[in-house]
């Protein structure tokens, strides 16, 4: 039991990443408010970024600035962190685009609730 808890504590960032991913997915799928859906997507993105950055971490590792004088040093892997910088840029552009779409939808329908919008559309179709 004790070993299990220590294992759990050592992998806490992976567990947190999975938990955040599920929370985000749940928010996207269950909330009908469009803004909350976007927030859910942002939580999912953060989860994946946390997971990706955790892969590169090395216990007792130094920041990856190579010091040729000290060959015994351990460095963390810089590749995942630099990849995630690209990922953050992508996430920002998706958020910006989806928010602008939500503004246009709000102007057209006067609401941000997906269920209400769908109800309005089906009324129009029946007329």
């Amino acid at each position, binding site marked *: 039991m004790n070993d299990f808890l220590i294992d759990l504590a050592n992998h806490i960032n992976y567990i947190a990443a999975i938990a955040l*991913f599920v929370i985000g997915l749940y928010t996207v799928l269950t909330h009908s408010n*469009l803004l909350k859906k976007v927030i859910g997507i942002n939580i999912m*993105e953060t989860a994946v970024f946390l997971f990706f950055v955790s892969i590169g971490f090395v216990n007792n590792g130094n920041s990856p600035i190579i010091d040729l004088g000290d060959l015994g040093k351990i460095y963390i892997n810089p590749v*995942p962190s630099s990849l995630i910088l690209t*990922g953050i840029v*992508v996430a920002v552009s998706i958020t910006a*685009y*989806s928010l602008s*779409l939500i503004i246009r939808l709000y102007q057209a329908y006067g609401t941000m609730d997906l269920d209400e919008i769908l109800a309005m559309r089906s009324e129009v179709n029946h007329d």
Partner: protein
Amino acid sequence: MIKHIPVLVQVSLLALAVLLPLLKKNKAAKSKLLTILLLAVSVAFLLISLIDVQQNGAFVYNFGNYESFIGIQYSINAFSTFMSFFVITLALIIMIFSTKDIDHEIAQSSISQYYTLVLILLFSMVGMIYTNDLFNMYVFMEILSLTSCAIISIKSKKENYLAALRYLVLNTIGSLSVLFGIALLYMVSGHLNMTMMNQSISMIWQLYPTNILIASGFMLTGFAIKAAVFPLHIWLPDAHSNAPTPSSALLSSLVVKIYVFAVYKLLFDVLGRNIIISLGIPTVITVFAAAGMLFGSIFAIGQKDIKRMLAYSSVAQIGYIFLGLSLMTEAGLAAGLFHVVSHGLMKTALFLSAGSIIYYRNKRDIRDLDGIGIEMPVTMVVFAIAALGMIGIPGTNGFMSKLYLSFAVLGAGQPLLLGVILLSSYLNAVYYLPIIISAFLKEPKSKNVTMQVEVLPFPMLFSLITIGFLCLLTGFYPTLVMNFITQAVNLFLS
């Protein structure tokens, strides 16, 4: 020089996309002209690159001469050169059609922006075909999903905003699953270059089978959302039917297929056939593919809007492609890739002719199409060719891809799936044949209609006739396409 062609084509697409917003006078007309010219030149250069790879063999292209374990790498081989040639050629035909049609669909002020978006879309598609680096593929995929939503929402109607937002939300969930899968594979292999990933995964996969299974599950789900595999297709009908006609044709015949290529690359370039088979992935794909083939067609039967019907038909056709893929045999993979090409041609023909009907007569409802074949003979002949191809009548390319697929299914020893293919073809006939029959054999509702060639603008007629001709050409001479596809399949299975 020849080895730089793929990169130069991509860079010039991106450069023109940046330059178009800077134009001053006559923005719309100049944007159209420049886009068409650039695409025509690109087709010529990609043909040179295709011939060069046929003669001198495949090679890898390292950006900035970085070594492959840190730099980005393009693999330029029979598969990538042929498919990028196909994508740009089809895009050129669609863009020629769009020069007249787009004026009717979107505001005059946003036409130049439309071509900017299309160029970035093509840039990312070509990139996804060539790239040999998994993270690079993710970045291109995100560019692709943003631009493909943007070419829907550019038609400023409220239905389009909703369709684009739905597409965007599901697309993003798909992208994030793919990124999660990439992270898991990176954990196992320590590389992002596909060739090097394949080397390390094939050595150590027995140590981490769960890790690889979860990774491929995440990535396949992500790609399946984007490629609209049944039951993850829910975004597709709204998105493809509300978009402007050229966008519908681009999305349905090209964008969806790019994710199919991504699945091919993931399964065969990164993981390798033996690992997939021992993890039991093909069975899962077969079930979803067969379900999609049947249900996509069943949903299409109930539709009244012609573009919506075509969109549901795409769901069924994606099922054929994944069925070929799931057989894991040489013939199956070849049949899948052949159907990518033939469905691309047929769906473009169908969407362009449906777009012409909307342009010329403003009719979208299938029940209003009585006698339309007398008013618009050329459009409806092209529509009929492609629709007969979808059903699988001999002489069209759709027949050839169904023939290849049926032989592949029998070769893999699964005759039950042949029944699914036949049933799905029958269902296709149920919703395509009534349109052809009512278009040519029923009396038009208005009496004073005389038989004459419709007065469509020349570019629209030109692309309609070209695409109809290409459908017949690949139907009568399938080896034109099949030669390249056999080489591509050998690359995937080696």
